[in-house]
């Protein structure tokens, strides 16, 4: 590999870096001020590109490209402001991360809106007038537009930096980042500030999308594709640090360009195609950075930010007699499902999926609720369990019950390793490191054809023996899931559960009382991972197959959504959330071609009506009923 080729690729990388930076900058600003993990950020990027292409098609050259970009920025900022006004403003007081649920639902709605507005086919916009030529560099041709893009990133960086450090608006933003309530107490209209910040972030995302017009077509898959990258860049740079985001974008883009430039390399007689690493390069970088620097490159330990004080979480209480009766009734209903199946054949099928989802969500809730650690990569353990069991069953030829033990064991082993690194981190950094590990597991599974079946996965994982009949397997999985849920519940009320909650609520005091926080969290992480692996194992046998999607980001987000939908502050929350999510999805998928939008709309409705999730909503109703009946 010639040196000039590498240098040239590095220059190429700068253009890609600017693209990454523009998406990440908006996300970083929004998170810094509003603490919202904006899952819809990729949608603003996608809308930016679609709007720019649409406008550019209607304008005469040479105004087409530039006009398109301007309109796209203005419109996405406007949409951002609207979203903040109509949706997010209502839920700032909800427990942390509920905004994630709302923005995730928004992403679903916006994706279907794009499908409705622009149709399913990709749309390629015009190239930038005045920048279609190339310059000669190192004997190769570099497009003018790449140079423009490579400069656009730093230009936006400087502009934002100036805005944040020199203007009054910037001072207010920085003040709000540190202490919102103080800013409000000083008479600053916080509401306007938040709307402006959200519009700014959305506008920058729109700009990032629009500027990609000469390089890629607008397509419906952009939102999710970009979202992952944006998170990675923001986290590597350090949440809230714009400068860090730029440096991180450059690093990620350069690593990728290097992998591509190296192509196939010979290492000790083994040929390895480095370009395959681009699948996971950014996540490898992120994991490495977070392990060495827990707050990213330029991040600092978060100051004790005073967030809109959400109501202090009430201590967990055991179920009352009414609750116990309802729980027993639910258990009886699930146990009787095979009988119900005689007249409603689909009921046990759906119940099987509900059971798996329940264990999946409950295991995440264990670290997220009592543990206070929101994992964005919980699907890793689901997948490890499923693949472990499937591999043991198919290749090693172990019996079904043995596979049911081996799967969770392998997931637990994964949790031992990844948990050790992860539990040392706080908040969003914890979330992102778990996400990085999940992505790394995903990419290994995706590529390791001989063991995991590559992108297609493994097939023919049908249970044998007593478990071969659907009823037998259903009852077995019901028993296992019930046991898993009861274990988690028992643990939550045990001294261990108290220690875990103490570590969540006040790490300092917990440590002072002699609790080894890291160890308690690690143990909780391992337990959650193992039970999640059990859910994955059941999934593999229920579906007869397992594919890398089971480990994808989307699957991890599903778990988060289930927990949040059900209510993170109640032990019953994940059970409600998982059931509701599975049943809703099953229903709306049949209901309409625009099922994602419908699902999103329903979720938004839940978020707006019950900021505490379904469990919170139910207890609200119960309280109201009690009041109406005149009881205290």
């Amino acid at each position, binding site marked *: 590999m010639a040196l000039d080729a590498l240098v040239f690729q590095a220059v190429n990388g700068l253009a890609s870096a600017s693209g990454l930076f523009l998406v990440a900058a908006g996300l970083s600003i929004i998170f810094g001020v509003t603490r919202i993990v904006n899952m819809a950020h990729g949608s603003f990027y996608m809308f930016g590109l679609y709007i720019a292409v649409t406008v550019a098609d209607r304008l005469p050259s040479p105004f087409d490209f530039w006009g398109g970009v301007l309109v796209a920025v203005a419109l996405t900022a406007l949409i951002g402001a609207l979203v903040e006004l109509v949706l997010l403003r209502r839920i700032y007081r909800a427990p942390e991360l509920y905004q994630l649920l709302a923005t995730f639902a928004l992403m679903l709605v916006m994706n279907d809106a794009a499908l409705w507005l622009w149709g399913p*086919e990709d749309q390629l916009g015009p190239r930038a007038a005045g920048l279609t030529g190339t310059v000669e560099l190192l004997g190769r041709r570099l497009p003018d537009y790449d140079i423009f893009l490579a400069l656009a990133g730093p230009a936006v960086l400087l502009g934002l930096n100036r805005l944040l450090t020199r203007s009054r608006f910037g001072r207010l933003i920085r003040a709000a980042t540190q202490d919102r309530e103080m800013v409000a107490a000083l008479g600053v209209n916080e509401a306007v500030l938040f709307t402006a910040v959200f519009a700014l972030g959305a506008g920058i995302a729109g700009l990032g999308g629009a500027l990609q017009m000469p390089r*890629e*077509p607008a397509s419906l898959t952009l939102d999710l594709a970009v979202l992952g990258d944006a998170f990675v860049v923001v986290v590597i740079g350090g949440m809230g640090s714009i400068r860090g985001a730029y440096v991180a974008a450059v690093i990620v883009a350069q690593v990728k360009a290097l992998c591509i*430039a190296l192509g196939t390399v010979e290492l000790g007689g083994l040929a390895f195609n480095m*370009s395959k690493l681009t699948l996971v390069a950014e996540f490898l970088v992120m994991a490495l950075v977070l392990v060495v620097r827990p707050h990213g490159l330029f991040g600092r330990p978060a100051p004790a930010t005073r967030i809109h004080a959400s109501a202090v979480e009430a201590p967990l209480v055991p179920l009352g007699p009414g609750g116990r009766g309802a729980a027993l009734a639910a258990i009886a209903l699930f146990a009787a499902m095979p009988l119900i199946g005689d007249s409603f054949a689909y009921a046990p099928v759906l119940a099987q999926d509900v059971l798996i989802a329940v264990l999946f969500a409950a295991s995440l809730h264990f670290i997220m609720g009592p543990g206070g650690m929101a994992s964005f990569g919980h699907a890793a353990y689901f997948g490890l369990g499923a693949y472990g069991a499937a591999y043991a069953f198919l290749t090693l030829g172990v019996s079904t019950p043995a596979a049911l033990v081996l799967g969770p064991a392998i997931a637990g082993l994964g949790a031992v390793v990844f948990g050790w690194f992860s539990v040392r981190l706080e908040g969003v950094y914890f979330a992102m490191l778990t996400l990085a590990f999940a992505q790394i597991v995903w990419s290994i599974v995706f590529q390791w054809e001989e063991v995991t079946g590559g992108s297609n996965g493994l097939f023919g994982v049908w249970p044998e023996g007593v478990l071969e009949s659907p009823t037998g397997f259903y009852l077995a999985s019901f028993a296992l899931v019930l046991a898993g849920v009861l274990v988690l519940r028992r643990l939550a009320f045990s001294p261990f559960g108290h220690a875990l909650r103490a570590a969540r609520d006040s790490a300092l005091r917990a440590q002072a009382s002699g609790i080894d926080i890291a160890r308690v969290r690690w143990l909780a992480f391992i337990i959650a991972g193992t039970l999640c692996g059990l859910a994955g194992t059941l999934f593999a046998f229920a579906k007869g197959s397992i594919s890398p999607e*089971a480990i994808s980001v989307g699957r991890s987000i599903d778990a988060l959504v289930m927990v949040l939908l059900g209510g993170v502050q109640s032990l019953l929350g994940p059970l409600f959330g998982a059931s509701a999510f599975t049943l809703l999805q099953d229903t709306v998928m049949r209901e309409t071609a625009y099922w994602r939008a419908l699902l999103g709309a329903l979720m938004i409705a839940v978020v707006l009506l019950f900021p505490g999730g379904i469990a919170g909503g139910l207890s609200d109703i119960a309280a109201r009923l009690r009041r109406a009946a005149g009881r205290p």
Partner: protein
Amino acid sequence: MTRLATPAPWRLRRTNTGAKWVDAASSRYSLAHTGDPMPPAAPILARTTLTCITRAFATLESQRRPAMRRSFLPRGPILRAALGPLCAVALALGLPVTGARAAEPIRIGEMNSYKAQPAFLAPYRKGMELAVDQINAAGGIGGRPLELIIRDDGGNPGDAIRVAEELITREKVDVLAGTFLSHVGLAVAGFADKRKVFFLAAEPLTDKITWSDGNRYTFRLRPSTYMQVAMLMPAAVEKKAKRWAIVYPNYEYGQSAAATFKEKLKAAQPDVEFVAEQATPLGKLDAGPVVQALADARPDAVFNVLFGPDLAKFVREMNAREALKDTFFVSLLSGEPEYLDPLKGEAPVGWVVTGYPWYDIPTPAHQAFLDAYQKAYGEPPRLGSIVGYTAITSLAAGLKKAGSTDPEKLVAAFEGLDVVGPFGPFQYRASDHQATMGAFVGPIGLKDGMGVMLDPVYVDGLSVLPSDDEVKKLRPAAR
């Protein structure tokens, strides 16, 4: 009767609000009132009411989603939201399908990744609907009409298996058909084998579905990855290029296409040298560096497997960099309108591709299909339309031959089944359950500012498939 989208309650609701009623009500109605700003109130009211009643009735009749409808009705927000879980419970019980049917239809359960792959599958769906309408207009199969029940498979095997179960247990479908993504297709094929249900995999390209993972109950319509690569081989070999580069999306489809290509080219031309190989993440191609890396390897020719947005990015970047300008390209699927049209005037002239040149197929069978399709939808067909149409045509032919919906009889009927589709006659091979439907090969050119395939040649699928004996060895799993 086709039951495609069951009457959706939320659409019904839109009808009532008046804002979007034209959209939701029948298309005839919207035509009648184009350009009429103040339509007479009485007929509107009458017709809207009528539409509402029929739709409400249809919903009641099918008795399947009262829960969803109810969820919009309650007045108080608390009550409304409380209904969510209640509805869920009601749904879990799986309210049964009742209602008398005149002539018991043959029910086809079709599942596909409509949300994940809309560009290909929207036309696919139209193709299926057209075929079903034509068959039913001609009296159905043995007096029984075809009924198509369409489901989204969620784009992943987990949801797909549940949907397949639902189609079988609740909708009581007679056959399963569809799927686009290879891993979903393979999962459903495994399920069909396990449950002994007939499954026609329409789209998935993976070789495994008919070969290494092939089973008794699964048949596949579309030419496989292997076949499409083999169709391009004559053009690749003829070029006698020494230095080849390969670029492919990094998953099974791309990997197996690249492997097949290398193997076949090496066999035909032993002195060939593969100078660069780029495996790019699907949908996330970093086009600039990849194009540059390929150009730096100075290949004489490139084999491309990228498609969709990745292909557009790649071509754009080649133009922007004026790189690989005089390099010869052979490319999989790039001639399909789904992927070629978005490139507009920038279509890569001279690339030899497989695809579907609907504008240049002068056979009577295709002309009849083209006319019917354009008449029905007012737009040209895509390859998806062909696949959807031919899948239904195949099922109709198989059902007719079997004279029954029994899976065993259907399997027997499909083995060696002759079908005439828009591309002409083809056969489902008994040896590997692969249809011999072919594809078109030709170089890309420009016409009226759009990319087209010039002088496309139809390559019969049978001519590029291994012989029956070879195939038997490839199918260890099939009984």
